[in-house]
Structure formats: structure tokens, C-alpha cells
């Protein structure tokens, strides 16, 4: 306990004496963490892109030509009561025709040629995104087809299953890549610190000969590692914040039409990053010092 001021002092002094090497180490670590964080942001965004996509997924329930206004009202009430659906939209025969007209663009002239509107009225239903599992949607559609007044239920079967595959692949890819990058970063940290401590071999040797305990020898180095890691974390957090602000600004400016929604890094992340840096290099330092043998 008496030695804590000494540990702190030694750590700070060593940091200062080898300031350039330490700066290199700090920067290496922050670059490593930067890569890790950039990857996290990209993964977060991929997820939100996927969410956006699946928001667009809807089922269309076509109403029988023979169905009465009452049947339609009944169906609407049923759908409203069903918690699986996020949104329910009724599309009348006329609205359907307008939709087609819009979709055809210049070719819409052909609509002027028709005698009678052959399109049925319909409901567009949006499922909760967590329910977008091919099997579930299929059984739901089959059930709805049995309802009175329903002529047909449509949903993007093929699209749904490939969406599912994409999201699965992305998740798997993210885990594999994330793990790889994490290992790489920890490794860089470790190797930088290892090389760093290798230089202190003589010092450790002398301390051992003077009768210093393991704790006495290790503590200043651990403090040093802690400091370096924290600083590295702070630098990468700051860099990420600026880069993030810059990118958000730029995308808003260049591509307002895209309305790209970049997932916001939660404020906590900026606190977690330095702690993660500290943690990683504490572990790194600990391993790097290695076992002290008398």
C-alpha cells in the first residue's frame, strides 16, 4: 500500500522518458480499436439497412368480386384485431387502377383504352419484422385465404426467403469477421506491449536481484499499460466521433435523396471504448510481462 505513490510515479516517469515509443504504442492501439469500431458501426448499419428492407415487406389480400361491403368491413376489423400486423391499408378498385397507371408511366396510355376496371379491391398488410420467417408467413397466408370474401393472398415468397438467407449470412459473416478483427487487434496490442516490455528485461532482472516481489515489479508496468490503453481508447473514440459526424454530414449533403439512415453510435459507446482499450491492454500487459521467475 505504501508503494502506490511509487508505482504511479514510476509509471508516469517511464511513460515520459520513453514518450515517443509510448506515443507509437498508443497510436497503434488506437488504430487497432478504430478498425474494430468502424467494423461495429458498419455491422450496425447493415442491420438497420436490413430492417429498412423488411419494413417494405407486405402481404396483399385480394377481395372477391362477389364480396359485399360488409365482408370488407369484417375483414378489416379482423386484421385490426390481429397483433401480427403493424399496418393495414385498404385499396379500392379505383385506387388500384391509379396505382397501375402510376406504375406504367408513359405506357399508361393503354389504360385509356380499357372498357371496365377489372382490378379487385385489396388490403395491404405489413407484418412485424420479427415474424418475417418463411414458414410463419406461409401458414398465415393459408389461414387468411379461408376467410370469407378473400379471393387470393399474395406475398413475396421468393424474396422473403432470400431476404432471410441474406440476413443469416450477414450475421454469420459479421460474427466471423468481428472475431477475426478482435483477435487481430488484441494481437497488435499484445505484440506492441510485448516488444515494449522486452526492452525492460534488464530492469526487471535488476529488480528481482534487489529482492522486489512480483507485485512490486509488475504494478508499474500494468499501470503503464492501463494508461496507454485508455489513451488509445480515448483517441479512437474521438476519431470515430469526428469521422462519424463528418460522414453523416457528407452523406446528407451529397445524397439527400437516399435518406440513408446511419445507425447512431449510442453515447455510451464513447465511454465504453476507452474502457475497452484499458481492459485490452491491461490483459495485453499482463500476458506480455509473463511469469516472473526468481
Amino acid at each position, binding site marked *: 500500500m*505504501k*508503494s502506490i*505513490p*511509487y508505482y504511479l510515479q514510476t509509471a508516469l*516517469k*517511464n511513460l515520459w*522518458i520513453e514518450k515517443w515509443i509510448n506515443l507509437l504504442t498508443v497510436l497503434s492501439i488506437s488504430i487497432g480499436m478504430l478498425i474494430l469500431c468502424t467494423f461495429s458501426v458498419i455491422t450496425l448499419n447493415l442491420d438497420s439497412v436490413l430492417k429498412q428492407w423488411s419494413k417494405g415487406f407486405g402481404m396483399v389480400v385480394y377481395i372477391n368480386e362477389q364480396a359485399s361491403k360488409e365482408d370488407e368491413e369484417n375483414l378489416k376489423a379482423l386484421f385490426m384485431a390481429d397483433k401480427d400486423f403493424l399496418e393495414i391499408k385498404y385499396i379500392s378498385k379505383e385506387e388500384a387502377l391509379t396505382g397501375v397507371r402510376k406504375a406504367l408511366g408513359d405506357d399508361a396510355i393503354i389504360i385509356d383504352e380499357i372498357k371496365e376496371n377489372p382490378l379487385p379491391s385489396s388490403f395491404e398488410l405489413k407484418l412485424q419484422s420479427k415474424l418475417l420467417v418463411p414458414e410463419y408467413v406461409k401458414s398465415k397466408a393459408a389461414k387468411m385465404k379461408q376467410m370469407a370474401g378473400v379471393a387470393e393472398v399474395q406475398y413475396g415468397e421468393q424474396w422473403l426467403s432470400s431476404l432471410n438467407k441474406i440476413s443469416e449470412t450477414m450475421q454469420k459473416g459479421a460474427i466471423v469477421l468481428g472475431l477475426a478483427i478482435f483477435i487481430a487487434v488484441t494481437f497488435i496490442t499484445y505484440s506492441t506491449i510485448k516488444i515494449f516490455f522486452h526492452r525492460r528485461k534488464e*530492469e526487471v*532482472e*535488476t*529488480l*528481482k*536481484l*534487489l*529482492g*522486489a*516481489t*512480483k507485485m*512490486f515489479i509488475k504494478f508499474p508496468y500494468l499501470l503503464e499499460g492501463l494508461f496507454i490503453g485508455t489513451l488509445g481508447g480515448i483517441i479512437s473514440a474521438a476519431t470515430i466521433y469526428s469521422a462519424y459526424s463528418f460522414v453523416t454530414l457528407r452523406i446528407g449533403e451529397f445524397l439527400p435523396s437516399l435518406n440513408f439512415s446511419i445507425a447512431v453510435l449510442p453515447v455510451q459507446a464513447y465511454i465504453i471504448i476507452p474502457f475497452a482499450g484499458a481492459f485490452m491492454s491491461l490483459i495485453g500487459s499482463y500476458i506480455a510481462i509473463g511469469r516472473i*521467475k*526468481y
Partner: protein
Amino acid sequence: MIRFSNVSKSYDKEPILKNLTMSVERGELAFITGPSGAGKSTLLKLIYCSERPDEGQITVADQVASKMKQRLIPRYRRQIGVVFQDFKLLNNKTVYDNIALALRIHQMNSKAIRSQVINVLKEVNMTHKAKEYPPCLSGGEQQRVVVARAMVTKPMILLADEPTGNLDPENEKSIMHLFRQINTMGTTVLIATHNESLYSGSGRRVLIIKDKYIDKEIMG
């Protein structure tokens, strides 16, 4: 205080010490001498557990040094002050901090450290270089710092390996005077040297290593 019985030590199968038996009594000041490469430094290393003997037993202050457990070594070493032949000063610490370090390892508080270090610096005549770093010191100055570091903890045993190899006759005398002083205060002192002038006329026991063991013992 220090007792070797039938101690053998070899490096890479090359025997250095063989069946060495000797003892230094509590409160004694003794010398070890012998030609270059005879094994003087090795003998001292065996005492402070930096090397282990292949055979035989070494007891130091009623502790079996030859079988000391890893975790007991730090405490054991804190009873022994060593003047290393190759100095082993930390180049990134000042003279003051190098000496203070030994006391810090003894968990002494900063105030006590300060007065002790200042005292010992005066004794080895190095007060004026307290703030210098070892690479900026002359050979003899570095050696005096090492002597100061070994003495400052008031150890039970003081081992000095060629402590005056870089010193002029005057400084040599004053260091020897210090050793005698610390010895009269109760510390057992063992000095390895080939400098005859250190022990001749001292009236102390001189152990001579020859042919890998203590061949004979003379009175200096």
C-alpha cells in the same frame, strides 16, 4: 552465517566449483580471492540465489539457500546487500532514485528514504551527482553508487564483488573504511576481489579459490 558444504556448480557441464566447503561467521568480514574465472562471482551468486548449486547445501542465516522456494526468494534477498561486479544500475533512474529504489523495495516510506539516501550518498562521496543518470557517471562514480545501494538497506549480509575495480587508491580506502564500519555495526561482509592491497594487512580471513574449491585460507 554463511555455510557451504560440498557445493558443486557447473555451467553447461563445465564444472566451475567442486566440493567446495567453507563458512563465514556472523559478524565476520572476510575476503574471497582467486584468478579471473575461478568462480568468485559464481560463489556469491549461489549465496543470493541467482544460481542454484548442482550438489551440496548452502545455509545462510539459518535458511537453506540451496533449496529456497521461489516465493520466499524476494524476502530472503532483502536481507542481503550486493555490490554487483557489473553494477546493474538502472540507466533511466537518477543516482538518487537508484539508491532509493532499494529502500522502496523494503516498503520504507518516502520521508525515511530521503534521509537515508542523503546519508549514504555523503558516505560514498557522491552527493554532488545525486541527480545524474548512470550513463553520465565515470566508472568509479558508478561503482560508488552501487556500494551505496547495497549498504543503504542496512542488510544482515553484504556481498561485494570486486567493489574497487574502478576506484583510485583514495576512494578504495574510503570504501574499505565503510565496509569495516558497517561490519562493526553487525553486518557480515564478504568481499570478492583480486586486489591484494584490499586484504593484505587487514588481519581478516582470506579464502582462496583454486582448482574449483577453497584451496587454502590465509590471514590478510
